[in-house]
Structure formats: structure tokens, C-alpha cells
């Protein structure tokens, strides 16, 4: 009990803020916009928000893989666009089966990530420069591949476009929410039993019970809102699943543990026998692959690829989302949920400002402010307990 109290205090005193600041920011944003515009919290608008999140949110997940090592990947936007173009050309012009085309896009993303990883680890180029040249170069290749037309449309009734226009039936959504809650509860019960079996300390029963109830309530609210409109969009389910699966992978596998270790102290990791080069290369491959999938989602939503695919503010939003969500730029800290929460913050601001008809100049400045706040928190947490907060 005492230990948990200490852990809770630790979290509140600034070192391990975790998801607290971003959740608070989200609550403030929701309250402000809903009081300014009654349409903001409507099911229709929240459904749009969910649709707008998936692609950039997925790309943000890829960025997190590299940020966890204390490195940066500036190429994820271009890579997402390029891979989407590869997929579209193969399926539209060469008639490749859509599923194979998607797999090809993922393979292309992985190959590009591998190239970046090797340039970083073998040649020793800074990741900033490697991926900056990637940002420019892959954008160039994208424009080259698109050729004169500059735009290729995906058939509206094709399975790739359908991806963004598929809605879960209400019954299925509720079942899914129930199953997720049940699995979460089962894991909590089993973990508790296993800890007790090994004579390890375990939480008082109230805490997991509260978490399970909170999850059930959250899922119920989301499903309730989305089913009143068109239903739960498939892309949201895909994005959320990716977040959860990647979180479980990086926190419970040896490879994931080593990513955190390299991000925390690369020299210590090397001396304990960890192959740092391999871990770093793996992170870039993961980043490229996930970016490619984000590109597929973006192309699906637009039903087309064009010279702007993966361009404009996608890269910046993806990185900003990760950082706003609580991933440290200094490496070793953060979870994949940052992508979900961070992109929710950014898209809420964008969406809310558009509803209010605010000029994009203001929107940029507000987003910048939130980003600066997030990085300030990160920097303070790194410096240790800030004066006056302890």
C-alpha cells in the first residue's frame, strides 16, 4: 500500500507524469470547444474526428519507435506517401490484388527503414540527416512515379477505398467493447493470481477494479457516441488495435525491452551485451513499415494518391502528436498510447478551430503552444524534480 502511495506521489511530483498532462489538455480542449460550439461534441463531428485521426496517428506510432531510442525519423511523411503510391500503381495500373499491393507497400516501407537504419548505424550518419535526406528524396521519387498526371484515383468500390468507408454494425461494436473489457479483466485477474502464487506483492483489489470499470465506461461512451451516427469506423478499430498491440510488444518482449534500454543508456546496453546496432536498425525498419501502413490508410480515406500524399503537415503532426502524448525526445520514455492521445489533441484543435471558422493562422499558433508546453514538460521531467513542484 505504502509503495503504491509512494508511486502515486512520484507521478504527481513531475518525474513520471505519464499520460496525465495530455489527458488534462484533452479535457480542457473538449470543454472549451464544446462550450463555444454545440456541434463539437455531436456524434457526427466526433465520428469525423475519429476518421481524421487514423492515418496520421498510425504514422505517429512509427515515429515513436524511433523516438524511444532518442533518435528522430523525419522521413515518415514522405515514406507514407511513397508507399501509398507504390500500392496504388500496382493495384490500379497493374491489377495486383489489393491485399498483395498493401503488403508490397509495407515491404517497401520496411526496406526504406532498413536503408535508413544501416546509414545511421553502419556509416554513423546522424539520424536527423539520414531521415532529412529521406524526407526530400522519397518525396522526389513519389513525384517521379506519379508522372505527368500527378494524381491516381483508387476505385471507390475497391477494397482499399472501402477500408475507410466500413462501419461496424452496432451489435458487433458492443460485443467488441464487451470482449475487450473481459480480456482486460481476465488479464488483470490472472496477473494478480500469478503474483500471489509467486509470493510477489499485488495491488489492493480496488485499483484493478476501478481500472476495469473505467475502461468499460470509456468504451461504452465511445461506442454509444459513434453508433448514434454512422457506427464505429473500421479504421479507428485498426488504429486502436495497432496502438494496443505495439504497446504490448514493446513492453513485454525482449526486443522491446532492449529498445527502451538503448534509449535510456546506449552505452550501458552495449556493455550488458545488447546488440545496439541491431536494436537501432530494427526501430527504423519498424518506423518505415508503420509509416507505409499509415500511407495506405491515408490513400484509402482520400481514395487517391497525389503529389501531396504524405506531404504538408502530416510529418509535423505525427511527431508533435507523439511528443504531446508524452514520448520523450531524449529517448527511453513513453508509450504507444501517446500517438492516440496526442493525435486526438491535435485533431481536436484543428477540428474545433475549423468549426469556429477561426483562421488557420490561429490554429497553427495554438497547436504550437500545446507542442511547446509538451516539450517543456518533457525537458523539466528530464532535469529531475523542478523547484517548487516537489
Amino acid at each position, binding site marked *: 500500500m*505504502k*509503495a503504491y502511495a*509512494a*508511486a502515486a506521489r*512520484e507521478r504527481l511530483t513531475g*518525474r*513520471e507524469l505519464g499520460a496525465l498532462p495530455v489527458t488534462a489538455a484533452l479535457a480542457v480542449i473538449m470543454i472549451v470547444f464544446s462550450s463555444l460550439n454545440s456541434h463539437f461534441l455531436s456524434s457526427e463531428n466526433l465520428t469525423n474526428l475519429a476518421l481524421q485521426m487514423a492515418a496520421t496517428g498510425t504514422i505517429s506510432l512509427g515515429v515513436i519507435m524511433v523516438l524511444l531510442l532518442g533518435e528522430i525519423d523525419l522521413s515518415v511523411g514522405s515514406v507514407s506517401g511513397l508507399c501509398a503510391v507504390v500500392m496504388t500503381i500496382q493495384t490500379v495500373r497493374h491489377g495486383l490484388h489489393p491485399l498483395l499491393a498493401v503488403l508490397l507497400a509495407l515491404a517497401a516501407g520496411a526496406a526504406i527503414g532498413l536503408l535508413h537504419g544501416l546509414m545511421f548505424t553502419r556509416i554513423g550518419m546522424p539520424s536527423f540527416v539520414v531521415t532529412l535526406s529521406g524526407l526530400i528524396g522519397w518525396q522526389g521519387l513519389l513525384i517521379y512515379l506519379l508522372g505527368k498526371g500527378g494524381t491516381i484515383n483508387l476505385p471507390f468500390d475497391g477494397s482499399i477505398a472501402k477500408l475507410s468507408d466500413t462501419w461496424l454494425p452496432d451489435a458487433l461494436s458492443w460485443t467488441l467493447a464487451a470482449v475487450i473489457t473481459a480480456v482486460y479483466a481476465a488479464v488483470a485477474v490472472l*496477473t494478480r493470481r*500469478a*503474483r500471489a502464487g*509467486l*509470493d*510477489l506483492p499485488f495491488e489492493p483489489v480496488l485499483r484493478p477494479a476501478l481500472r476495469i470499470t473505467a475502461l468499460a465506461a470509456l468504451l461504452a461512451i465511445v461506442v454509444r457516441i459513434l453508433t448514434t451516427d454512422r457506427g464505429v469506423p473500421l479504421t479507428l478499430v485498426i488504429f486502436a488495435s495497432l496502438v494496443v498491440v505495439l504497446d504490448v510488444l514493446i513492453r*513485454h*518482449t*525482449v*526486443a522491446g*525491452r532492449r529498445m*527502451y*534500454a538503448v*534509449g*535510456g*543508456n546506449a*552505452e*550501458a*546496453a552495449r*556493455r*550488458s*551485451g*545488447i546488440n545496439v546496432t541491431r536494436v537501432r536498425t530494427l526501430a527504423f525498419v519498424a518506423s518505415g513499415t508503420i509509416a507505409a501502413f499509415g500511407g495506405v490508410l491515408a490513400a484509402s480515406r482520400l481514395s487517391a494518391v497525389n503529389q501531396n500524399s504524405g506531404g504538408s503537415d502530416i510529418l509535423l503532426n505525427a511527431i508533435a502528436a507523439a511528443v504531446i502524448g508524452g514520448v520523450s525526445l531524449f*529517448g*527511453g*520514455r513513453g508509450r504507444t498510447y501517446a500517438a492516440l492521445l496526442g493525435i486526438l489533441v491535435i485533431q481536436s484543435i484543428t477540428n474545433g478551430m475549423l468549426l469556429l471558422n477561426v483562421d488557420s493562422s490561429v490554429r497553427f499558433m495554438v497547436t504550437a503552444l500545446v507542442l511547446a508546453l509538451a516539450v517543456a514538460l518533457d525537458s523539466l521531467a528530464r532535469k*529531475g524534480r523542478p523547484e517548487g513542484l516537489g
Partner: protein
Amino acid sequence: MAALLAVRGVIKRYGPVRALAGVDLEVRAGEVVALVGDNGAGKSTLIKVVSGVTHADEGVITLDGRPVTVRGPHDAQALGISTVHQDLALCENLDVVANLFLGHEQRRFSWLRELRMERTARDLLASLDVRIPEIRTPVAALSGGQRQSVAIARALIGEPRLVILDEPTAALGVEQTAQVLALVRRLRDRGLAVLLISHNLVDVTAVSDRVAVLRLGSNAGEFTTREATQEMIVAAITGAGYGS
């Protein structure tokens, strides 16, 4: 009792400089040997040779009387030699359990066996009487003495026979130094051979069984701690009379 580790006539040259000019050293199981000497006396070089970070140009290292070749840190670990470097090499963002098993995670396929590692970690820390309130918080939240204790405990994960501690008390306050020295005694009580490098003669006389003095890359005296005074050791370090 025969020595667990014996170093004979080790020479190490860096260009024209002889960092080690034929050094002998013995450490027995269940014994704490303090290696002392002024800056540049060759302590670090000798440790690097034994822990596989660098190679001797001449000389023999034997374990249990058998000559061994230590080509790298991995060789040293496989031979049962574990080193705690002065900078500890902990990942501050990871918790105590993760740090203890860093690079040697218990796994089922590539899935971490988290609970089993935590059980082993708690047992290990308890057997060493290391008290850390919450071993699931990041190491960044621990005190200097606790970090040193975690680093020493980590050296025991591979069940070594010789533990080398490089300046374990250098950055610690009085109380934390006492904790770490108590931990060193418990290593000895477990039957481990401990080689302790230190600048602090108070610590050295408090915890060691024997003191080996290096000066300018050569042996400059060896004392049974019980029978030696600090003055004798200082004299050997500076080369002013007595044994030299």
C-alpha cells in the same frame, strides 16, 4: 587455500609507456582484496586486463590454477568474472528488475518472464540485505547508494566467482558508504572473491582482508589488513620507505 584468480608477471604497454611492468596479484575465494595506488599506478589497466576490456602484452592469468585467455568482457563473464564499473552502466529509465536482467532477460521465446524475473530479483536483493522500497520504479528515482547496490547485485546475476568493484564508494555519503561496504562483506560471506579498487583508505581498511599496492605499474607492497596501519599503506603508495 589456492588462489581463485592469480595474475603473474603481467606487462601492458601503451606505445613507449609501460602501464604495467610485471604485476602479480592473487585473490582467493571468500576474500576481499583491495587494490590501491596513486593515479597512474596501473590499477585501472590491471582491472581492464582481468575483465577482458584490454589484453596484456605478456604475463599469465590463471583461474583455479589453470591458465585462461580473456579476449573480451564476454569471455570474462563466461569464466565467472563480473565487473562493476565506476559509472555503474544502469539504464535510469528502466526499473530495478529490468536493470538487474539487462541483456540477460529471462524469456519464453521472446516473451519476457516478468514475474519470474521479479521473484529472482526480490530474492537476490533480500539475500544481500539491499532495501529498495519499490523495485518497479525507474532507477532514476533511487539514491546513489541504492544504485550502487543495484549495480553490484546485477554483477551477481550470472553467478560469478570473482567480483571486481571499481571505486564503489567514490560518489557516496557516509551512510550510503556504510551500506555498500556492508554489501561487500556479504559478497565475501557468500564465498565470492572480491577485488576492490579504492582511493579511500578508511574504506579499504574497514572492509578488506588484504591490501595490494601498485606503484608506477609494479607491485609496491602487500599487507594483511589486520596487521597494517594506514601509514604503512600510504608509505607504500607514495614509495616512502617500508616495503619498497
